[in-house]
């Protein structure tokens, strides 16, 4: 046997099976876990954002701020929300 053939045969020892269902399944499980992790992180961030917005809206009522300041705050919040929606739509387009 030539040296090159011997080298090729020794190299081939590391070649895995052509179809390996266990490996494919393991990849799919990891991909699914990764997707779930990302989804959960996004849901947590979204929840935290909603909670902060709610607190921001209720805070003036709880601290009895004047109605004028309350309206001003609501308009400001609405502008901020509109801006965030616009940016998200632009980014996703």
């Amino acid at each position, binding site marked *: 046997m030539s*040296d*090159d053939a*011997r*080298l*090729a*045969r*020794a*190299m*081939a*020892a*590391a*070649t*895995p*099976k*052509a*179809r*390996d269902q266990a*490996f*494919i399944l*393991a*990849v*799919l499980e*990891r*991909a699914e876990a*990764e*997707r779930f992790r990302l989804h959960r992180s996004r849901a947590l961030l979204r929840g935290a954002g909603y909670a902060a917005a709610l607190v921001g809206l209720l805070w003036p009522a709880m601290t009895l701020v004047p109605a004028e300041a309350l309206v001003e705050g609501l308009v400001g919040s609405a502008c901020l929300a509109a801006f965030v929606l616009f940016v998200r739509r632009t980014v996703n387009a």
Partner: protein
Amino acid sequence: MSGHDEARLIAAARAGDGSAFAELVARHQQKLRGFLRRTVGDWGDADDLAQEAFVAAWSRLHRFEGRSSFRTWVCGIGYRIARDAKRAHRRAQTRDADWLEVQGGGDPAPLEDHIALGEAMATLPQDQRAAVALCLGEGFSHAEAAEVLHMPLGTVKSHVNRGRERLLQALKVRDE
């Protein structure tokens, strides 16, 4: 497998079709795992890194532009993960015991050759080892290997030639 067929699978996987992605994994796992096993040395770690590479490919599929083949692209991801992670030596040494079984009935290499080759591969510099694993182990062309490793073509050719010489030398030394 036609390029059109593969493009269809990639498009479906990109749209979230898990079975199309599974088919892509099935078609390319042998090349990627073989390449990483020869590059990393430890088969358990290499298979783990290959899984990581496929998961990364799955999440980055929207960035795949089709300028190279899918196997070249995914091998490139695998190589960078293996190179950057440097976790191989820190993980538990979980050796695969089925290396003889994977020969698929062919004439297996003698154990001494396998050991000598593994030892010699471990002494090669990382880039050279990767070039040898791709070109001599997986049958990639020099141009494809250059694409995977982000290296000039001439460098890949020289790595493969020098690496081949050293491996042949290691097998001869084992005989003496």
